[in-house]
């Protein structure tokens, strides 16, 4: 009996080791004549509650890589995708970044989803001189430092993003709430994470500045699902609406519990709640919820039609989701830089700094989400935002505009 138990454990252990040994690399198309290999890394949550967004990022980069290999955009090189899971956790993200940084063939990284994860990923990649382009990070401090309002200062010369900033997203949402929304008072809640707190603060500042009234502020704990205490406070304060800075795993139950307990105003959030998974939890109780998100709605963009068709034809089992089109653009900015820098270099590692330079010099890149140029902080010139409203378990775009800080 004991012997058999041990045997079973040993077999299980060996199986686990084998499974762990299998790498996550996925071929970006047919391996063939090009002799050299270059890798584009992806760091995003591929498992866990935020994986819907993360897998959309990974698949879209995969699509860009496949197309580049077909067209042989980078002469003499075959591009491979090296996707790493950060589980939306900063420490896991740092490990993933270290792994990619130590692989000599890695030339650049697309990611991350979460601003908090980039805070620990960006320094690692910066040390290795690897260009990183995030399709989704909106926290201001990542490109402009902790004093981004008064004394903006770039921290990592290798960090770029095609997503816009919370200092624009917050005010854009607040202007909508006061204008078309017609809300005068609000209760502000956030999850204390880099993104959530930054966004909630930016939103509330603008809301107050433009004549709105913030009746109360509170926080919730990420991972919590019972919001009875804070919902009771909201109902006691009688605001017209609630603003939530955070992501959909908490926003879903929060919206549902607000409605269950008789709150009639809407919940509003940022791009962190703009996901179809929001409805898997909240269902139709979330109707009326408002969300701002980066860029114009992918489905409406003339320039993104080809991307949507190609994505569907590629047969991914997950949707491109909120950041797919931006991830596709981020990957293509990187691929363009590779095409410029790699032919003049002896190997990938030696080309890393010229790749960063090439990305820095990106001007008027015609992407599927619009035109992107990087400014001196590594931020995109594209400042388009859209307000979405939840109607029968779907996000309907109701207003698009630009917000220049």
């Amino acid at each position, binding site marked *: 009996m004991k012997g058999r*138990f041990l045997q079973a454990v040993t077999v299980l252990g060996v199986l686990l080791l084998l499974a762990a040994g299998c790498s996550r690399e996925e071929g970006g198309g047919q391996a063939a004549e090009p002799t050299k290999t270059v890798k584009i890394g992806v760091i995003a949550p591929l*498992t*866990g*509650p935020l*994986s*819907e967004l993360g897998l959309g990022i990974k698949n879209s980069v995969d699509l860009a890589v496949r197309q580049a290999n077909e067209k042989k955009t980078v002469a003499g090189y075959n591009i491979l995708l090296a996707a790493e899971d950060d589980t939306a956790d900063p420490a896991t993200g740092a490990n993933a970044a270290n792994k990619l940084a130590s692989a000599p063939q890695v030339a650049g990284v697309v990611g991350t989803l979460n601003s908090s994860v980039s805070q620990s990923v960006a320094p690692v990649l910066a040390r290795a001189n690897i260009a990183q382009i995030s399709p989704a990070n909106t926290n201001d401090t990542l490109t402009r430092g902790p004093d981004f309002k008064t004394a903006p200062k770039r921290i990592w010369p290798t960090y770029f993003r095609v997503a816009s900033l919370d200092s624009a997203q917050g005010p854009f949402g607040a202007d909508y709430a006061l204008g078309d929304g017609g809300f005068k008072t609000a209760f502000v*809640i956030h999850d*204390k994470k880099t993104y959530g707190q930054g966004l909630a603060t930016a939103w509330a500042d603008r809301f107050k500045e433009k004549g709105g009234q913030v009746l109360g502020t*509170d*926080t*919730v*704990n990420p*991972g*919590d*699902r*019972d919001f*009875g*205490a*804070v919902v*009771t*406070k909201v109902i*006691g304060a009688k605001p017209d609406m609630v603003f939530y800075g955070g992501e*959909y*795993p908490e926003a*879903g*139950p929060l919206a*549902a*519990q607000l409605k*269950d*307990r*008789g709150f009639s105003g809407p919940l509003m959030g940022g791009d962190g709640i703009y996901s179809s*998974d929001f409805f*898997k*939890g*909240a*269902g139709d*109780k979330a109707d009326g919820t408002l969300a701002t998100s980066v860029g114009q709605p992918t489905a409406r963009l003339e320039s993104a039609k080809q991307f949507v068709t190609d994505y569907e034809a590629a047969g991914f089992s997950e949707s491109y989701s909120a950041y797919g089109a931006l991830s596709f653009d981020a990957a293509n900015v990187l691929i363009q830089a590779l095409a410029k820098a790699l032919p003049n270099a002896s190997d990938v590692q030696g080309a890393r700094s010229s790749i960063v330079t090439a990305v820095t010099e990106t001007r008027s890149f015609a992407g599927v989400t619009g035109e992107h140029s990087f400014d001196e902080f590594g931020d995109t010139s594209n400042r388009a935002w859209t307000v979405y409203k939840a109607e029968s378990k779907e996000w309907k775009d109701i207003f698009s505009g630009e917000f220049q800080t």
Partner: protein
Amino acid sequence: MDELIQQLANGVTKGSYYALIALGYTMVYGIIQLINFAHGEVFMLGAFIGLWTFNLGVSAFGWGGTSVVALVVVLLVAALATPVIGVSLERFAYRPLRHAPRLAPLITALGASFLLQQAVAVFYTRGQLQFPDLFPSTSFQIGGASIQLLWVFMVTVALVLTLALTLFIRTTRLGKAMRATAEDPDTARLMGINVDVIIALTFVIGSALAGVGGVLAGMYLGQINFFMGFIAGLKAFTAAVLGGIGNIAGAVLGAFLLGILETFGAAYLGGQWQDVFAFCVLILVLVFRPTGLLGERVSA
């Protein structure tokens, strides 16, 4: 004042499903001194089994909206299916290690917890799932606070089941055997008690209670996911320690107290203080009463 009553109601309701989980922790600890960290996962599976049962009922019998039949069936299936998981855990994860040093089964329990979580995540879903409103959304007013009928139902179920469990342990032959096993398993065996059966029975009862708790929490929170058992289990374990682990009345008292403390912490100090406040109280209690509020009195 209105808000105080409302927050108290929130806390008590939260305490009701903490209590249903805490009972399993405390019973298992009382009888084999094992902290069954996989117990939170049994609670999570209870919620999932409840949802699957409901979905089956929708497609097979056309259930929809709130119905008493659906509610009873879902609760019963959850209470009957979760013991299978609990007993399997005991049989395959804990029994082989019963005479090993105490740390070994503790680590196995953690492993079993991850295994169950990831099994649901990999083979079913990592996303959130909406839980149906099986209970009518009626509410009434008490002193300016709005109390939902569901909350009253949850607290009633928790209290009735605790009472039934206490009576079972105090008055039946099997209950007597459980007490004897908790007191001294070797002597109990000499007295002709089948200790293995009694331990399995403890897991059956604990799991069934957690399964019911899972369904109730699903209805209360409105949605479920594969890691919902982790935090809830941790909190219920804390509640059991607060009340005096091994003690049934203590677990229930601790659970309601923890629910109220958390809610008050979140309501009057701010959401970021919810756990800090609750755990400060826990530390204070343990400083002055190291065995918890009601002391470690085994299985009674």
